[in-house]
């Protein structure tokens, strides 16, 4: 308002003139204000209405009327409850506006033609200077597109969430499976560790020495007992090649033996699978029985286990036993020989006439004495064998003549038992063999003696002779009682006698086959047998056609 300076109020004309001008200015201002409000109302794109305290609409702008579909007269006087779908929300809206002045709430507008439009309702309360509540303005914002987008988004999110939940479920299942697997692996690992610990404990506390070589002949394990045997520490030898171990003098006998074994394995795959055993003197007062066993994973060899068993004490006991037996046998043989010759003289009448009855007793005593001498001889042979002083007259010999000699000594017995006896030999000339004739004769005699002894009357005994480039082979076949299956593993052991033959014959030392085996093997030959209980047995042995065999 632009007014002149304050007039003189005492002058009535002047005062009236001032008031007229003052009123005119105010009117103009109000008109400008109304015009401004009207223009603003027309322009305002946001639907707005004015609501009196009792929640009745008294004014709306054109946007509001367009949006709701009501004209001015239709909407005026309507309670706002009629505009919104949510009755409870509307009550809250009214309450909040009266309490908080400004309110914002999502609601659903009901238009005149029944449409439902999602709107954001903004409300602002009005108060006069005295604080009286005069009503409020409401503005509506169309959020239907936003809501549709939100709904679609929620739907998509829902779908995605569902997918993710399913995936999460799958992942959870996979996680659980994995955990189960891990648990299983952990259990297996624990079991494996326990097994490893057990194995380690066994290896550590094993009374035998153990060495493990990998496939490249590198020593990968040595247990404390083996360390003691060789007086070395594991750190000095672990990861060393077999050849490198030769640097330790105490290792030399073993490395030499193992080199031979490994060389054999390379050339003979069947050999690889076999357990190899050999006695090996390592140092004074230490004799080890060395056993090697290929370690295999499937068909593949991954290393070699070497077991070192201390047999020093056993060997010592064995030696002492042999010495005792030898001593006892020698001590017994002299008086037994004296008894034999005395009895012979009695039987021959050199010491005077004897009665028939006396003869009978003396003959029995003589035979008993003979058996005793035979046993003593066998025992002496065994002790010689065990002491390694058995072969000493190796001469090239025709084996056929040796066999014939033995056969001739059994002619009476063969005839007596009415056995069908054959000696089969090839026509071509046999190679000679370097043998201790006495010993080979004894070996053949022991085998043939068993064949004749345990073959019933009118049975068959056949000796066959064969040869190839390197060996001669002798087989002695009978149709006797055979060897029980469960006892075949002990046939070559000392003092072995089959359970079935003990019943037939009380005589027999059980040393014959043991002696035969040692004689054959001392000549570099091999001996084995085939047997079927009740049908007969065939013993085979070979002797090298060429002269090489080792002393033992």
């Amino acid at each position, binding site marked *: 308002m632009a007014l002149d300076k304050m007039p003189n109020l005492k002058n009535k004309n002047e005062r009236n003139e001032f008031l007229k001008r003052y009123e005119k200015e*105010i*009117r*103009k201002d*109000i*008109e400008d204000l*109304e015009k401004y409000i009207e223009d603003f109302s027309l322009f305002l794109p946001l639907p707005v209405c*004015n609501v*009196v*305290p*009792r*929640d*009745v609409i*008294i*004014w709306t702008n054109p946007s509001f009327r367009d949006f709701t579909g009501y*004209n*001015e*007269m239709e909407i*005026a*006087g309507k309670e706002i409850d009629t505009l919104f779908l949510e009755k409870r929300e509307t009550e809250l809206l009214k309450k909040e506006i009266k309490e908080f002045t400004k309110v914002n709430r999502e609601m659903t507008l009901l238009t005149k033609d029944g449409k439902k439009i999602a709107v954001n309702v903004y409300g602002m309360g009005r108060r*006069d200077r005295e604080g*009286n509540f*005069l*009503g409020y303005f409401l503005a509506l914002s169309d959020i239907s597109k936003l809501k549709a987008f939100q709904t679609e988004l929620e739907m998509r999110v829902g779908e995605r969430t569902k997918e993710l939940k399913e995936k999460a479920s799958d992942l959870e299942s996979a996680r659980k499976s994995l955990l189960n697997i891990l648990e299983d692996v952990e259990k297996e690992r624990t079991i494996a560790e326990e097994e490893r610990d057990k194995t380690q404990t066994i290896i550590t506390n094993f009374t035998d020495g153990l060495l493990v070589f990998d496939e490249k002949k590198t020593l990968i394990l040595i247990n404390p007992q083996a360390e003691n045997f060789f007086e070395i520490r594991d750190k000095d030898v672990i990861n060393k090649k077999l050849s490198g171990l030769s640097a330790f003098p105490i290792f030399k006998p073993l490395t030499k033996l193992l080199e031979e074994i490994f060389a054999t394995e390379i050339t003979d795959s069947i050999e690889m699978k076999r357990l190899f055993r050999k006695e090996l003197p390592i140092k004074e007062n230490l004799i080890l029985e060395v056993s090697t066993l290929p370690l295999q994973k499937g068909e593949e060899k991954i290393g070699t286990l070497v077991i070192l068993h201390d047999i020093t004490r056993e060997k010592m006991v064995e030696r002492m036993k042999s010495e005792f037996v030898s001593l006892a046998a020698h001590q017994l043989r002299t008086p037994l020989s004296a008894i034999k010759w005395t009895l012979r003289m009695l039987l021959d009448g050199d010491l005077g006439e004897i009665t028939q009855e006396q003869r009978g007793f003396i003959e029995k005593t003589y035979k008993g004495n003979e058996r005793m001498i035979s046993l003593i001889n066998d025992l002496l042979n065994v002790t010689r064998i065990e002491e390694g002083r058995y072969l000493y007259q190796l001469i090239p010999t025709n084996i056929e003549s040796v066999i014939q000699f033995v056969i001739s000594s059994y002619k009476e017995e063969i005839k007596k038992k009415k056995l069908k006896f054959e000696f089969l030999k090839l026509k071509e000339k046999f190679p000679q063999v370097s043998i201790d004739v006495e010993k080979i004769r004894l070996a053949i005699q022991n085998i043939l003696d068993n064949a004749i002894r345990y073959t019933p009357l009118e049975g068959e005994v056949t000796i066959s002779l064969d040869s190839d480039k390197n060996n001669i082979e002798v087989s002695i076949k009978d149709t006797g009682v055979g060897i029980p299956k469960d006892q075949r593993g002990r046939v070559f052991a000392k003092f072995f006698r089959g359970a079935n033959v003990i019943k037939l014959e009380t005589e027999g030392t059980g040393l014959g086959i043991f002696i035969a085996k040692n004689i054959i093997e001392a000549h570099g030959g091999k001996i084995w047998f085939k047997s079927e209980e009740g049908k007969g047995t065939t013993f085979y042995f070979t002797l090298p056609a060429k002269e090489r065999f080792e002393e033992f």
Partner: protein
Amino acid sequence: MNKSLKEEAEKLLQIKGMTKGSEILTLAHYIESKHGKKEVWTLERKLEELGCPIHFNEIEPAIWYPESWIVLGMIVAKELFDWKDLYDIGYNSPVFSFGVRVFMKFLPLKAFVTQIPGYWRKFLDFGEIEGLISTEEKNCGTVRLKNYMFHPDMCLYFAGFFLRLAEYVIKSKKITIKETKCIYKGDSYHEYVFKWL
């Protein structure tokens, strides 16, 4: 031209009493809203013929104009647009009235009633009005309009006008209004009684 309307106009234009331009404009807004803009011009031409050249777009809300103009305008419009009476325009006048919208405070009934005479004086420079809330009868009130005597049709105009204002203030599903005294029936003032549920 309708001779009686001409006479009516001449007679009305003689009556003194002024009202704010904003109230005259409610007539134009009502006709525009109800019948369209062109009909406003039709009314203007008719009023010009009757010797009352009103141009609504030149009316200024805050300036005083003869009350006879709006009364004549409504009587002419009633005839032109074949209105039954002036109740509806009276009922909708508060909707279009800038004055009602801006100056009236629709306070609780008791407070509102006390302010009614002041509101009257804002828009008219003659006559007077008073409001009463009955102490004897529940949900009952009275409005008395004194010294207002332009035309009998205005009785229903005010009935509609007062009812609308009552609806803005009283929260009720049903409000009724009845003119119980009328200056044209020998009473000394108009009296309207409101009742509500």
